[in-house]
């Protein structure tokens, strides 16, 4: 097998998600061994067959769905060649790429399975995009419904109190106030909002995104390493067809990298800054209470300013 084809196969193997496999019936050279290139691990298993030939399978080492990924990324390349001809055609790599592409979307394992298959060679760095990866990665959010009284003054008071906690005003309207607060001060901010008015309803959530975040970090790093390899491969490509095929892969890979970076930035922002939403609106204008029951006393429904002050 030509070295370029090996390199490309390994690169695609590491790119593929969820047990991407490459089966070669011809004995590889070198035979069974483990490949570790850069920060990406591609494990190789070699099993000689009865006919003296060998099935050679290269599996992507790091992969997990983790809630992020697309058809372009979740792929399963499966090549079965008749052996490596001494003089492979100039378009061999292009053919491989084109044959592989339609299979990418159809052979994606479910996210859970992908997660189980994930075998990262190395843990991500201690800190990624300003997020400390050593502990749990949680996105905190809180939502409050406050009684609707002197909303403007109450909003002003809340913002003034929260100003001491370095909050960022994200949105303000007649009925809603959304602030972002550094995660370390989330509880303080929640306590202050609790005391700012009549809290009719509260909802506090902590969403663990550690698995997704770390998964993206690994896959991003793998993709960047693969891109470097493809760039090197491109420099050595002699045929125009090969160069075009590699460039297409480079473009696809670049898109994937940008998506990973975007998602990583979003998660980092959500982790570092908690979101608190304060709603000034009646929970329900229906006769049925929010708990799903209505007391059988009609006169309760007649209470309120609208009836009291309707003097005609």
């Amino acid at each position, binding site marked *: 097998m030509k070295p370029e084809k090996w390199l490309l196969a390994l690169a695609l193997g590491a790119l593929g998600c969820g047990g991407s496999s490459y089966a070669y019936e011809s004995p590889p050279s070198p035979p069974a061994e483990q490949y570790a290139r850069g920060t990406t691990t591609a494990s190789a298993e070699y099993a000689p067959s009865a006919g003296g030939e060998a099935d050679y399978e290269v599996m992507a080492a790091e992969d997990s769905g983790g809630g992020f990924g697309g058809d372009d990324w979740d792929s399963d390349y499966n090549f079965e060649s008749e052996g490596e001809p001494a003089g492979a055609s100039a378009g061999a790599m292009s053919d491989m790429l084109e044959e592989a592409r339609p299979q990418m979307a159809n052979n994606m394992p479910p996210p859970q399975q992908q997660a189980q298959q994930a075998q990262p060679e190395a843990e991500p760095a201690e800190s990624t995009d300003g997020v400390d990866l050593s502990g749990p990665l949680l996105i905190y959010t809180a939502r409050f419904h406050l*009684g609707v*009284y002197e909303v403007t003054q109450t909003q002003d008071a809340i913002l003034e109190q929260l100003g001491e906690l370095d909050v960022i005003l994200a949105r303000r309207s007649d009925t809603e106030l959304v602030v972002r607060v550094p995660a370390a001060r989330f509880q303080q901010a929640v306590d202050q909002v609790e005391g700012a008015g009549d809290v009719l309803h509260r909802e506090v959530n902590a969403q663990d995104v550690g698995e997704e975040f770390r998964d993206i970090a690994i896959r991003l790093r793998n993709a960047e390493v693969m891109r470097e390899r493809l760039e090197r491969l491109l420099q050595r490509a002699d045929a125009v067809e090969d160069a075009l095929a590699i460039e297409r892969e480079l473009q696809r890979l670049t898109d994937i990298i940008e998506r990973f970076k975007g998602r990583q930035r979003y998660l980092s922002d959500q982790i570092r800054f908690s979101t608190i939403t304060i709603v000034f609106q*009646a929970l329900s204008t229906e006769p049925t209470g929010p708990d799903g029951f209505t007391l059988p006393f009609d006169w309760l429904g007649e209470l309120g300013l609208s009836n009291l002050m309707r003097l005609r």
Partner: protein
Amino acid sequence: MKHAVITPTLLVLTALWAGCGSSFAMSAPEGFVELDEEYSNYDARFTSADGVVISVRSIEHDPKGDLDFWVEAIQSRIRMNGGYALLETEDVRAASGQSGKQLRFGRDQNGTPFKYWVTIFVTDAHIHIVEAGGRTEQFDAAQGRVENAIASLSIH
């Protein structure tokens, strides 16, 4: 039911309603006028010229519940369904000696803040509800007179 409204100047008994056996008397706040409630669900209602309103109604106490039950029922209804903010809760006493509870709410309507008080007295036969409300600015100006009127409530 029977009720008597005692004006600050005349202290006369107004209409006595027969039927459910409840009677109460309350001094009309100074500067308020009593409205004709013949066809409404209120037993008595008073308004100021600038829109502060006080009403009284007696409801047959069936099924029976203690003061806490009715306070909770009213509070839940007003806060959760009406979107009112509970600002304060006060223990009150009627002129006739019964203990009651006063829930003081606030609510914005079309950007204007309003205050709304609900005072509850529970006797064996009746639940007496005194409501008072108006725009915050006017209500605050009339608050002393409203409090005096509520304190003058005599339940028989």
